């Protein structure tokens, strides 16, 4: 259920206040042109860490706060409202899930406390090419006595340029997938920073016979990989929900103030009805997103399906809302100076991150054997 605990309400209010104060949309604009560096503002991430956000899913024994995915989703939603740039999702949901769901005790002990306190941020390198196909990973991992050797290429890895740790998907010799931890400065790892439309950081990565120690393997198997990815996808869906909600509210406010034909354009019924229909779409997206987060928290058997539901619906909803935001703003919405374009661009990139709406519709269908 969407009903929040007092703790969660406090968390959400805090995230809302902090984002409005410290990381409003202009903070994203300020990142432009600095992408070769980090793709996000390390100082802001340090503040997030002080508030304990990267530690939310980390068990207390590893220095975390042991809260659940709904809590992290609430934060992601608030960050999504203002398009905040940070590696939080990849670190707090991605790397943390890769570690906690894995079997590598040494890695947990070594890495989780650093992630918890924010000193180590992480990125997830999954896709080998332009589409998300986690069941046919082409990057390979070969086992030697001294450890592992990874070879291949990773495409458009979000926030890779600004973090210390890469969590890399590779195929083992038995063709099952696995995740490896790999410090970003390991020999053989080459990053090419990408300039993407959403002004956030990302990089293409070449892995040229990258040697990793025997402890680099965090976990393996298709189920393991899917569960880790679902953990991130649900949080990404929450981020998209936040972006959608903000785009909607900004647009409705504009409708109240923009005067044409001697009246606010919000008095025109054609626009009113489009806004009302859009509100309904957001109702569905919100239900799907919190349903997915709760399903993971509850360990529901159908959590994966719920995640695909949420990612697909939130993806479509954010795209549609961003388009409507531009259309209803008219010419001003087409200018770089206005925020509407930023929401459209972020919607597009997020939709394509870890499987777009079409990918998740197909996954949903297969899980129901349709």
């Amino acid at each position, binding site marked *: 259920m969407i*009903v929040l605990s007092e703790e969660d309400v406090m968390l959400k209010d805090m995230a809302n206040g902090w984002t409005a104060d410290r990381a409003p949309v202009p903070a994203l604009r300020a990142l432009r042109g600095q992408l070769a560096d980090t793709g996000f503002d390390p100082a802001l991430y340090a503040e997030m860490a002080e508030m304990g956000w990267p530690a939310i899913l980390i068990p207390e024994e590893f220095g975390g706060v042991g809260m659940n995915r709904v809590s992290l989703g609430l934060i992601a939603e608030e960050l999504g409202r203002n398009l905040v740039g940070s590696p939080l999702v990849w670190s707090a949901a991605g790397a943390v899930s890769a570690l906690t769901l894995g079997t590598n005790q040494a890695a947990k002990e070594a890495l989780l406390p650093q992630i918890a306190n924010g000193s180590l941020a992480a990125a997830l390198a999954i896709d080998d090419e332009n589409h998300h196909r986690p069941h046919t990973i082409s990057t390979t991992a070969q086992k030697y006595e001294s450890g592992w050797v990874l070879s291949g290429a990773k495409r458009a890895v979000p926030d890779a340029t600004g973090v210390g740790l890469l969590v890399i998907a590779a195929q083992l010799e038995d063709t099952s997938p696995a995740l490896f931890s790999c410090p970003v400065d390991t020999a053989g790892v080459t990053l090419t920073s990408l300039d993407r439309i959403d002004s956030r950081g990302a990089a293409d990565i070449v892995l040229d016979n990258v040697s990793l120690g025997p402890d680099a393997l965090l976990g393996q198997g298709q189920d393991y990989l899917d569960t880790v990815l679902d953990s991130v996808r649900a949080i990404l869906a929450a981020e998209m929900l936040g972006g959608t909600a903000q785009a909607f509210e900004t647009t409705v406010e504009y409708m109240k103030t923009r005067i044409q034909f001697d009246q606010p354009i919000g008095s025109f019924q054609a626009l009113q009805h489009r806004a009302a229909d859009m509100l309904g779409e957001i109702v569905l997206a919100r239900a799907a997103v919190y349903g997915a987060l709760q399903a993971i928290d509850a360990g529901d058997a159908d959590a994966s399906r719920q995640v695909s539901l949420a990612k697909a619906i939130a993806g479509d909803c954010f795209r549609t809302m961003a388009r409507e935001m531009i259309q209803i703003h008219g010419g001003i919405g087409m200018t770089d100076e206005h925020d509407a374009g930023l929401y459209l661009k972020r919607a597009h990139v997020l939709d394509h991150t870890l499987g777009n709406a079409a990918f998740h519709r197909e996954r949903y269908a297969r899980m129901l054997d349709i």
Partner: protein
Amino acid sequence: MALDEQQFRQQAQDWLTENFPPSLRGGRFIMPHTQEEGSSPSADYLLWKQRMAAKGWSVPTWPSEYGGGGLSIRQAEILAEEMTRAGAFNPIGGLGIMMLGPTLLEYGNDEQKARHIPPIVRGEVEWCQGFSEPGAGSDLAALRTRCEDKGDHFLINGQKIWTSFAHVSDWCFCLVRTDTSVKQAGISFLLIDMKTPGVEARPIELINGVSHFCETFFTDVKVPKENLVGRVNQGWEIAKRLLQHERSGLSSQRNVANVEQGLPHLAREYVGTDDAGRIADADLRTRIVQHMMRQEAYGLALKHRNAEIEAGQDGTAPMSSLKNLGAGVAQELNELAVEILGHAGTGNRGPGFSNTELELTSGWLYSKCFSIYGGSHEIQNNILAKRELGLPGA
């Protein structure tokens, strides 16, 4: 609290095991009205109805003072889950339960509540709704049915339309005009016994052949003054509240009863599968999947709303949105069902079409009114624009 929930769940299970007649497993609610059409309920059905009425679980959240179950919303939800699990169903329904009961509990006086609510709980009295008129559809407040104060009684003259089941109902809750000089502020809320002389209901045939909607004529109908709910000219306020109950009721109905095993099952049967086991028509399959995802998200939205109400919070999902979404999802479902049937979904009557096929086809036609009744899609959008979004009037 989770512990209490567990306890209640156990109680509900036990009571259902003891009281729900196994012969009714998988059955469903039979409207008393439809008895005249030949499907009279079995002895077990009547027994089940009686037991549910006695327990008050036909209206689980109504106060036990008037025969209700006195449960919390969360308990009612658990009860519903356990009933589904047991293959049971609520044998009592109708507009008395969905709309009038909650309204009377709020606006009725003690005498009205004591008189009218217990028979509703027991499913003994059927109510119909006299709101719309030929010239007052979406613009409900334009209604003109006249109510004159004759001292010891009211005198009613006028015409209502879309009065569902008026021809077989016992009572009608009715909006009447008590002041012609103002619009909304000149309306009163009246309870009318359908057996009163001067009341006549004529069924209207719909596009799928059913005719449970009526035109209802009131000619010099005398109504006792005790049947006024609230004050004279307070009717619009009461009606708006009642319409919220209607929206709420309509938005919680899943409207999927006709396709019990779901679209994929129907599609596998009528369209077949490809080598990979997928529904053979890729274009159709894509639309079925999209629909099922909306359906599931809509179900989650209803669940969330119930949880919020239970927790005493304002619902984050506006009722008008849920009403529109529910209608849309149900219409989509019906469209897909007849598309899946192909020629089998074009029948009006047999031979050549199975009963299930005819029901799906008829249900599809009927589903077109989901976005009209209970306040059309357009009216809900007007409400949303004004009340939820605060957009200015034209």
